[in-house]
């Protein structure tokens, strides 16, 4: 996979309204299960407040992120050949019948583009989408510029993703372009453990229970985790799978772990970040650990971590950047970007 596809521009949009974490925990359902980690979920998570979209729709978040990114890039919307929505939670209308990609195309005036959406990988949908987009762009001369967009709006009273994280609303966009000589995507590795498919789900209105109708919580739109299986089946393999995709992408491009100058890692929680740093012997300053104030933004975490690191001067010319994450399904993904 090599047509020198690179990141031309990337940015994100976060709604202005914030809600303190203490208020989130006060308003939302209290988890009944026990989390087998030696932490206090509410106190140790490292996130103080979340961004809430209020009247903005999930697609509004996509469109705003896309417009910011387009404006920064200076490119004409008619230059875009592909628009791929990589949102990882339910959108304005039911998927896979509908995706926000078409609405984004209309809103930004990218009339030449083909639109689609990638609906796997959870928070790792960023990596899955990079893999598909880079492959399409490498394979076909006619795909020169791609816009990846995501917009996540959690349903009311479902920002607590115990025992993993708490989620903010927000959108992100990434413009990919061929024949770049910087910010080149050298490789992408994704791995899936499909037997965990039903450990983290949203039931849907067709599965709603009579007792939930008219109640305070529309549970059929809320995430449901099987915490016992989470403890027994996911936690023991999580770091192993991270190692697998990280070493996998390094092998693809003939690099070593020590060649990586900076890591972008999700903002699930402080203890999760600490476990990652410890497992791979990484100093805190080499990892995007300073974005906890945004809350966890699902797949958009990859964009936020990257954009903030660039803005904060953490990434320099010539640096090799690894973006690495995991997500529902479950999948793990790692990509390498050469600056």
């Amino acid at each position, binding site marked *: 996979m090599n047509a020198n596809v690179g990141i031309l521009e990337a940015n994100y949009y976060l709604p202005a309204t914030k809600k303190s974490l203490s208020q989130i925990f006060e308003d939302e359902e209290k988890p009944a299960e026990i989390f087998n980690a030696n932490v206090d979920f509410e106190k140790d998570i490292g996130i103080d407040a979340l961004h809430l979209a209020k009247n903005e729709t999930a697609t509004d978040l996509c469109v705003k992120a896309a417009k910011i990114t387009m404006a920064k890039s200076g490119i004409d919307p008619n230059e875009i050949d592909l628009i791929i929505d990589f949102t990882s939670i339910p959108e304005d209308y039911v*998927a896979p019948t509908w995706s926000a990609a078409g609405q984004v195309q209309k809103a930004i005036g990218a009339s030449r583009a083909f*639109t689609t959406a990638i609906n*796997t990988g959870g928070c790792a949908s960023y990596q899955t989408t990079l893999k598909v987009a880079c*492959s399409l762009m490498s394979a076909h001369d006619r795909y020169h510029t791609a816009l990846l967009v995501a917009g996540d709006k959690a349903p009311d009273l479902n920002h607590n993703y115990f025992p993993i994280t708490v989620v903010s609303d927000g959108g992100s966009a990434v413009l990919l372009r061929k024949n770049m000589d910087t910010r080149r995507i050298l490789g992408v590795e994704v791995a899936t453990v499909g*037997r965990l498919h039903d450990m983290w789900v949203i039931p849907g209105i067709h599965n709603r229970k009579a007792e939930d109708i008219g109640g305070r919580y529309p549970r059929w739109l809320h995430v449901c985790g099987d915490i016992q299986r989470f403890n027994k089946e996911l936690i023991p393999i999580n770091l192993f799978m991270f190692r697998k995709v990280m070493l996998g992408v390094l092998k693809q491009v003939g690099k070593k772990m020590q060649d990586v100058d900076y890591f972008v890692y999700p903002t699930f929680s402080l203890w999760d970040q600490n476990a990652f740093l410890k497992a791979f012997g990484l100093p805190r300053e080499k990892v995007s650990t300073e974005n906890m104030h945004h809350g966890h933004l699902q797949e958009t975490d990859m964009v936020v971590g990257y954009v903030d690191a660039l803005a904060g001067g953490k990434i320099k010319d010539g640096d090799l950047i690894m973006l690495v994450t995991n997500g529902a399904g479950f999948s793990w993904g790692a990509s390498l970007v050469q600056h």
Partner: protein
Amino acid sequence: MKSAVGILSASCQVPKAKCSVEDLFREEGANYSPEIAARLGIKQVHLQKGAVNETASNMAVAAGREALERAKVDPQTVKVVVEYSIMPQEYLVPVWNMSNKVQAEVGAAKSFVVGFSGGGSSNFMVALTSAAAMLSENEELKTALLVTGDTTIPGNRVLNPEDPVTVLGDGASAVVLQRGAPGSVVIDTQLWSNGANHDVCYIPGGSLAHPDNIDLYRMQLDKARYDSSLKPETLRRISDELLTRAGLSLSDVACVLCSNISAQDEAELQKNFENKVSQVCATNRELHGHLQGSDFPLNYLSLVESGKVKQNDYILAVSHGMGATAATTLLRY
């Protein structure tokens, strides 16, 4: 593309239970008339009637297993599972996707999964071209399993009952794709979107916009916009672009495979594609209705089994779907 990628095998599954379209119209309170019957050209559909082994994902698993067996491919050598369903699944997409379950249950443990949304019947060709690109451009990926399962929403199988467009059946399909496959080479695909029509056909209820309105949990169609947005001329135009790029014209194509939407839809495509739409499409439409993403695998299998396609024949697959999208793929058998 760096390397040629082709179809090794395909498989389709449908539920055992069948229902005549006349009975289905009665069940769904829609008016059935000889004029509507002629326009649809669908006699019956297969429906999942609660059998556990016939859920969308279980049928997809069965189709995946059969396709792998037919291709004589060890599931452990599958490197990517690509999913192309259209209807809502057992749990809400994109948090859940049946491709993960398929990966686990067919034993494709060394693969990762990718699913596509929003293209309606064009989703298969989006999946096909994306999978072909991944196999062509990534040395570590040689074999892909494309898979789907679609079961319709009860009471919502006649699309747009006031002025029916199609009748949706239940079914699943799978296709094994491999770099270096000896035949059925995926030459190229042309895709087209018009996002202004993203809401011509969609399911509003049970989403963020209408979280608790079960009455809106139905596939709804804006017929006037549907009629004006998805024109067969668009499919012909993008097919000509694709053929020109390949140095061919429609006269070089042995046959055309289309979606099994309706007799009316097919008649318009026949007109635009110089009567090259294969007879297998009409036969499958009559017996299965519109199987959404599975229409192409079903028609492809029937075409191959009919013996009417010869080695090196060019096959053109065309489809239009939600989004609004249109797609065309050129294969060399």
